[in-house]
C-alpha cells in the first residue's frame, strides 16, 4: 500500500477553487434542466388534454354544422327556371309538406379519419362548385 503511494502520480490543478466552483455549477445547471424538464412534462400533459378537448369541440362544431346544413332545404328541389309565384294559400299548403332530406352516405368503417374528412371536403367542394356555376 505504501509502495503504491510512492509510485502514484498527481495532476496539479492550478485554481482548485475555480475548478470546484465550475464543477458544482455544472451539476447545478444539469439539475435545473432536469427540474425544468419535469415541469415541461407536466405541461405537455395539460397540452395533450387541451388538444383532445379542442378536437372534441371541433367535432361538435362539425356535427352542428352538418345539422344546420340539413335544416336548410335541398337546393336541387327548388328554383325551377320557369318558377312562378304561387298564391299565398297555395304557398301555405305547399310549405306544410316537409321536403325530403337528402340522405347522407354512411361513412365506410374501413376508411381512416383523414380519408373520411377528405371525402367530406370533396363533397362540400363539389356542392360549392355547383352553386358557383
Amino acid at each position, binding site marked *: 500500500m505504501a509502495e503504491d503511494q510512492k509510485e502514484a502520480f498527481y495532476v*496539479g490543478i*492550478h485554481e482548485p477553487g475555480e475548478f470546484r466552483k465550475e464543477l458544482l455549477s455544472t451539476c447545478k445547471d*444539469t439539475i435545473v434542466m432536469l427540474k425544468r424538464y419535469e415541469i415541461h412534462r407536466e405541461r405537455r400533459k395539460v397540452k395533450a388534454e387541451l388538444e383532445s378537448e379542442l378536437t372534441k369541440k371541433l367535432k361538435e362544431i362539425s356535427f*352542428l354544422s352538418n345539422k344546420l346544413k340539413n335544416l336548410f332545404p335541398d337546393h336541387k328541389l*327548388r*328554383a325551377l327556371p320557369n318558377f312562378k309565384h304561387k298564391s299565398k294559400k297555395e304557398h301555405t299548403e305547399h310549405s306544410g309538406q316537409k321536403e325530403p332530406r337528402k340522405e347522407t352516405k354512411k361513412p365506410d368503417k374501413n376508411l381512416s379519419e383523414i380519408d373520411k374528412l377528405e371525402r367530406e371536403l370533396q363533397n362540400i367542394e363539389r356542392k360549392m362548385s355547383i352553386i358557383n356555376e
Partner: protein
Amino acid sequence: MEKLKFTKGSPIFVRVDEYKDILDVIALIKGKITEAKTILGKLNEIKNTEDKEIEAWANEIEEVERKLHYIDRSLLEPDAF
C-alpha cells in the same frame, strides 16, 4: 325527366319551426367556437412558454458545455508548478 337546376339568387323558404331550430343551432355553434377559441388561446400560451423553454435549454446546454470545457482543459492541460 327534366333536370332541375339551381338558379343563382332564387329565394328559398325555411319553415318557421325549422327557422327556430336553425337559430338555436347557430347559437350553439357560436358557443362552441368561443370555447374552441379559449382552448386555442391556452394552447398558444403553452406553445410560447415551450418555445422560450427550448431557447433557455439551448442556452443552458451551451453554458454547461462551456463549463465542462474549462474542467476538461484544467485536467488535460495542467499548469506547470
